[in-house]
């Protein structure tokens, strides 16, 4: 109990000294990102944090208690903004860990008895470690949120179904096909088939980097589902290497029409729907 009050007392009395030292320390640290954050902003954040810290430490150093909630909330706020600005985990955590030096300095000056000094330093260091770890966890959490959100956006963005012509849809696939994406692709395609009444859909895999058995299986599933809805599928954009891989893997694509380019696939689709493409007379004479 006594130790705790001592730390609290010191922090309270030496507030300005600690703040100055701390800001100084942070400004001189190698992890400072002047390109991402202004000095005034850092000073403001440090001041506010120290204020909340001083208040919380008066009633104990267990950060699980409700009295520490404002401190944690504030750290959450700082961490979120730093994650968005592109700080690395260690740069974010330095905010807390850099407080050690100035705190130790004032404690060393205030406490004379070596035993008390060690005890006080120990309390302080565990407290700051806990806060530092908390910041790291928050940082990680925020980063994961960003990744998760981007994944979802990517999923939506990467599966457009475009109508090329009356009754003809195209599905340009870009990136690797996994089960989750196949599901989205399939749903989108089938939905669009219902909406547009398309008879032929062209699946273009020019943007699919590799085709392994799993990807091929996903493709065949999509084709089968579209066929059940009454739409024929053509797979186009098969690069030479992919053709080789498909044969080496023993994937059977014999039941699906395949074309090397989207243009070829489009021509055959036009043919099947009974449409023809002709050059206008003007162009002919020019050519």
């Amino acid at each position, binding site marked *: 109990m006594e130790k705790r009050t001592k730390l609290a007392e010191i922090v309270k009395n030496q507030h300005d000294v600690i703040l100055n030292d701390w800001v100084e320390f942070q400004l001189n640290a190698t992890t400072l990102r002047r390109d991402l954050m202004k000095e005034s902003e850092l000073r403001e954040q440090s001041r506010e944090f120290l204020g909340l810290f001083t208040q919380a430490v008066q009633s104990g150093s267990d950060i699980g208690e409700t009295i520490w909630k404002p401190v944690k909330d504030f750290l959450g706020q700082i961490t979120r903004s730093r994650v968005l600005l592109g700080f690395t985990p260690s740069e974010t955590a330095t905010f807390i860990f850099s407080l050690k030096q100035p705190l130790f300095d004032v404690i060393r000056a205030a406490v004379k008895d070596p035993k008390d000094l060690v005890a006080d330093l120990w309390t302080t260091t565990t407290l700051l470690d806990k806060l530092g770890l908390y910041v790291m966890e928050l940082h990680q959490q925020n980063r994961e949120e960003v990744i998760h959100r981007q994944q979802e956006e990517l999923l939506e963005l990467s599966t457009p179904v475009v109508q090329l012509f009356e009754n003809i849809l195209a599905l340009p696939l870009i990136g690797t096909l996994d089960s989750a994406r196949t599901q989205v692709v399939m749903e989108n395609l089938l*939905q669009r088939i219902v909406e547009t009444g398309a*008879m032929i859909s062209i699946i273009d895999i020019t943007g699919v980097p590799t085709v392994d058995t799993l990807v091929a299986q996903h493709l065949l599933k999509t084709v089968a*589902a579209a066929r*059940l809805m009454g739409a024929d599928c053509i797979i186009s954009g098969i690069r030479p290497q992919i053709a080789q891989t498909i044969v080496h893997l023993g994937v059977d694509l014999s039941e699906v029409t395949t074309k090397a380019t989207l243009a070829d696939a489009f021509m055959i689709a036009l043919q099947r729907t009974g449409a023809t493409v002709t050059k206008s007379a003007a162009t002919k004479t020019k050519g």
Partner: protein
Amino acid sequence: MERIPILKMGRFLLVTVQVDMHDRLAMTLQDDLTGRIVKDRAHGVLIDISSLEIVDSFIGRMIGNIASMARVLDAETVVVGMRPAVAITLVELGLSLPGVRTALNVDRGVELLKGCIEERAQGNGHVAG
């Protein structure tokens, strides 16, 4: 007992599944339809499943079976109006109904049937001539 109606439209039979199929109903349909194909000398069968929302492996297999039986009885079969969710379910169940003709809606199905039958007539004509 509940039955799925089978309507005669010219040379075609139209089966519209308006309720969720349970196993008994599917078996009854199989009996009724094969009987009607023979009795009416139908050349084509349209099975409209646009109201069918839930399928399991049994119903999926029954749809495939009914289509195959109709073909044995010399009637072209087209399954029309399958919902996206049903299509995905069937594919995931591994029942992609090979050999069954499909169309988006009844209109398209009728067109497809007419096309098939004409083709067949021409083919027969060739052989005869």
